[in-house]
C-alpha cells in the first residue's frame, strides 16, 4: 500500500490543525520535547498567527478529505500581533453559524487557545478532538474532488 492512501477498512479520522507560530505551534513542540504522546491523526500547518486563518481554509480542508479541523492560537490577550486571535475568534464564530447550512457538524471544527507552555494541553486537545471526530464518523457530506 502506498503511503498516502487512506485505509478504507478501519476509519482513522484525519484532522488538519492550523497553529499560530508563537503559542500553539510552540505548545505542540513542547508536547514533543516532553515526549508526550497523542494520536498521529493530526496534521499541522504553521501560520504566523491564528488571525491568518481564512474560514475558507477550513471548508477547503473538508473538501479535500479532512474529518475535523483545529485552529489554535495564543490565549486571549497574548497574541503576538496584539489582537489576531480575537479576529480568529470572530471569524470562527461566524463560521460555526454557517457550518450547519453546508452540512458540517459544528463539533468537527474547534478553536482552542494553547500557550507555549501548554504541551500537555495540546496533547489533550488532539486526543479529545480525535475521539470526538471519530465518534462522528467520516465526513462524507461533500463529494470528493478528483485527485
Amino acid at each position, binding site marked *: 500500500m*502506498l*503511503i*498516502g492512501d*487512506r485505509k478504507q477498512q478501519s476509519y*482513522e479520522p*484525519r484532522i*488538519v490543525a492550523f497553529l499560530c507560530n508563537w503559542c500553539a*505551534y*510552540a505548545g*505542540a*513542540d513542547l*508536547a*514533543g*520535547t516532553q*515526549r*508526550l*504522546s*497523542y*494520536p*498521529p491523526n493530526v*496534521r*499541522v*500547518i*504553521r*501560520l*504566523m*498567527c491564528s*488571525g*491568518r*486563518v*481564512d*474560514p*475558507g*481554509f477550513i471548508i*477547503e*480542508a*473538508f473538501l*479535500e*478529505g*479532512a474529518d475535523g479541523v483545529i485552529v489554535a492560537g495564543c490565549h486571549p490577550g497574548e497574541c*503576538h*500581533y*496584539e*489582537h*489576531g486571535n480575537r*479576529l480568529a475568534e470572530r*471569524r470562527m464564530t461566524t463560521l460555526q453559524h454557517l457550518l450547519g447550512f453546508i452540512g458540517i457538524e459544528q463539533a468537527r471544527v474547534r478553536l482552542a487557545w494553547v500557550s507555549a507552555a501548554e504541551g500537555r494541553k495540546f*496533547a489533550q486537545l488532539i486526543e479529545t478532538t480525535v475521539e470526538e471526530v471519530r465518534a462522528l464518523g467520516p465526513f462524507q457530506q461533500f463529494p470528493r474532488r478528483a*485527485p
Partner: protein
Amino acid sequence: MNNRVGVFICHCGKNIARTVDVEALRKEAAGLPGVEWAEDDMYLCSDPGQQLIRERIAEQNLDAVVVAACSPTLHTTTFRRAVESAGVNPFRLEIANIREQCSWVHPGTAETTHKAAALVRSGVEKARRTQPLEPIHVGLQRAVVVIGGGVAGIQAALDIAEAGYPVHLVEQGPNLGGRMAQLSETFPTLDCSSCILTPKMVEVSHHPLVTIHTLAEVTDVEGSIGNFQVRIRQQPRYVIAEGCTGCGDCVPACPQVVPGEFDRGLGARKAIYIPFPQAVPFTYTLDREHCLNQGPLIICDRCAQACEPRAIDFDQQPSEELVEAGAIVLATGCDTLPLSHFREYGHDRHPDVIDGLMFERLLSASGPTHGEIRRPSDHRVPKSIAFVQCAGSRDPERGKAYCSQICCMYTAKHALLYHHAVPDGKVYIFYIDIRAGGKGYEEFVERVRAEDGINYIRGKVAKLIPKDGKLEVWGVDTLLGEQVKVEVDLVVLATALVPSQGIQELARVARVAIDGDGFLSEAHPKLRPVESQTRGIYLAGTAQGPRDISATVAHAAGAASKVLGLFSHDELVEEPTIARVNEALCRGCSFCVSVCPYDAISLHEGTAHVNETLCRGCGACTPACFAAALGPRGFEDDQILAQIRALAC
C-alpha cells in the same frame, strides 16, 4: 512553480529514525511531484550534513529545499544559511517538523511514517510555490525625540547625545526638571535632590547635540521605526529666550500674584516668573492666562518697561516644527492622585491636609517656607503630624489597585526630616505594610522606626475631623485590634502615583498602547521592559509605571541603550515576510485597513498600500480581503491551500 525541489531527511541519530521508517519516507518523497532529489542523513544540522545539502543543490541544480527534521524554531537560520551559500534563496527553504510533532509523540507504527510523509508532502507543496524574497532595507534617521524633560528624559537624552546622536528634548512645562526638581532630599541617602539633578539639567542644556523645546508638545507622529516624522508644537513664552538674561527685574514690576504650580499652590508667583531658582533654561515665562493683558490689547507693560534687554514680546505666536527621528523615547512621568479625590480626608475643607509632594515643597530650602516646615493654615510649625500611607494605592475600590512603590520610603524620609527639624514633634505613620525593597531601603526604614517620637501604626485612617485648629485622625491599629484617635496639626497623605495628564492623547498620537491603569504598556513585562508595543518607541521612567529615581534612571538608560542599539546599524534590515498588495485586484474596500493591528495599511488613491516597516506579517488582513488582493509573503493563500490538499487526503 519550482520543480527542482530537494528533500533532505534527518535521522537525528535515532530521534527520528526510531519511530519513522526513514527509508520508506525517502522513497515516498522521491516520487512526489516536483521533487528532483531526496536523500537522508544522520545529522543534517551538523557541518557535514549542511555540506551535503550544499553539494546536492549544486549537483542537482535544485531551486527549493525541504528539510525534514526538528522544529523550524530550532534550525531555520542554520538551514537558511546553508541553502543561501549554495545559491538558493533562503526563503525557498521549508522545514517539515517530523521530530517534535511526529517521531517524538507517536509510536513506531506505519501511521507515524505515514504522517511524516504527509508533512514532507506538505513541505514540498509549499516549497514549490515559494518565491525568492529579499530582505527589505530601510534608511535610518539617526536622531531621537525624547518627550518629557524630567530626570528620565534628561538621562535618556544625555546618554544618546553622548553617543553622538542628535536629540530633541520636548518638555511641556517652561523648564526641565520634572518631579525630581520639586523634591527636597532623596531617600535613602538624603542627598539634596536639586544638587544631583541641577548638574544634569545644565549638562543636557549645554550639550551641542541636544535641542531643548520647552513649553512644547508633540501633536502628531507619522512614519515608523527608523523614520518618524514628529510634529512639535511650541507655545509662546512671550519672553525672547536669547534676550532674557534672567536678571528678574520684570518680577517686582508685575502686579499679578498667582499661586505657584511648582510649589503646589503653597507659595505665590507673579504672572511673569521662573518656577524655581535652578530652572533650566533660565528664562522667564510670561503666563498670559494670569497676565492683565488678555487679548491683543496691551493695558499693562510694566514688565516690558522693566526689562532692560527688551526681551518681552507680547506678540509671540505658537509655532510648529516637523522633526525627523529614527526613534522616540516617551518619558512623560507621573502625577499624583489629586487631594480632591479623598473626600473622607476633607482637604477641600481643611488646608492642613496636604500631599507628599506639598510636604516636599515645605521641606525644600528653595520652597515657599525656605525649608521651614510650616502648616498652610496659620503658618505655625506643626507640633505633630500624621502621615497616611497608601492614600489611593492598593485600594481597588476607591483608588488604584497597584502599589505606588515610593510612598513607604518617602514617608519614612519625611518623618525623619521633620524629626530633625522639630525634635520634640510627634509623628504618627499609618501604614498597611512597609515595602522597602531597594538597596539600603530596609535599613533606612528601620533607622526611622527606631527614632523616638516616630510611631508606626499599622492600620488605615477612616476619617479626619477638624477640631479647634487641629485635625482628629480616626483610625484602627490592626496589630493591637484597637481604635486609635490622635490629634495632629498637619496631615500628609501619601497619594497614589498616576499617569501624567495628557498621556492618553500622546499615546493615541504616537500609537502606543496603555495599560488598564493608564500607564504606557511595555512590549513584554519581563523581557522587553523599555520597549513600547510600537517598534522604535521606547519608554523611560514613571510613564510606564510607578518607580523611584534610581529605577527611573536605570529604565531611561535602558531605553537609551535600545536606541543606540538601533542606531548601530547603517540601515534597517526588515524581514521580507510581510503583506503584499496585488494592486490590480485591490478594490479599495479598506477592510484590511481596519483589521491591521499595526495601522500598517492605508489607502492611496483607492488602493491599499502596506508600510513595510510597520507590517509584521501576521496575515490578519488576508482573510479580510474579499478580492484576494493581499497576503503575507511566505504564507500566501496558494501555498496554504496546497498544504491543505497535501495534508487532508
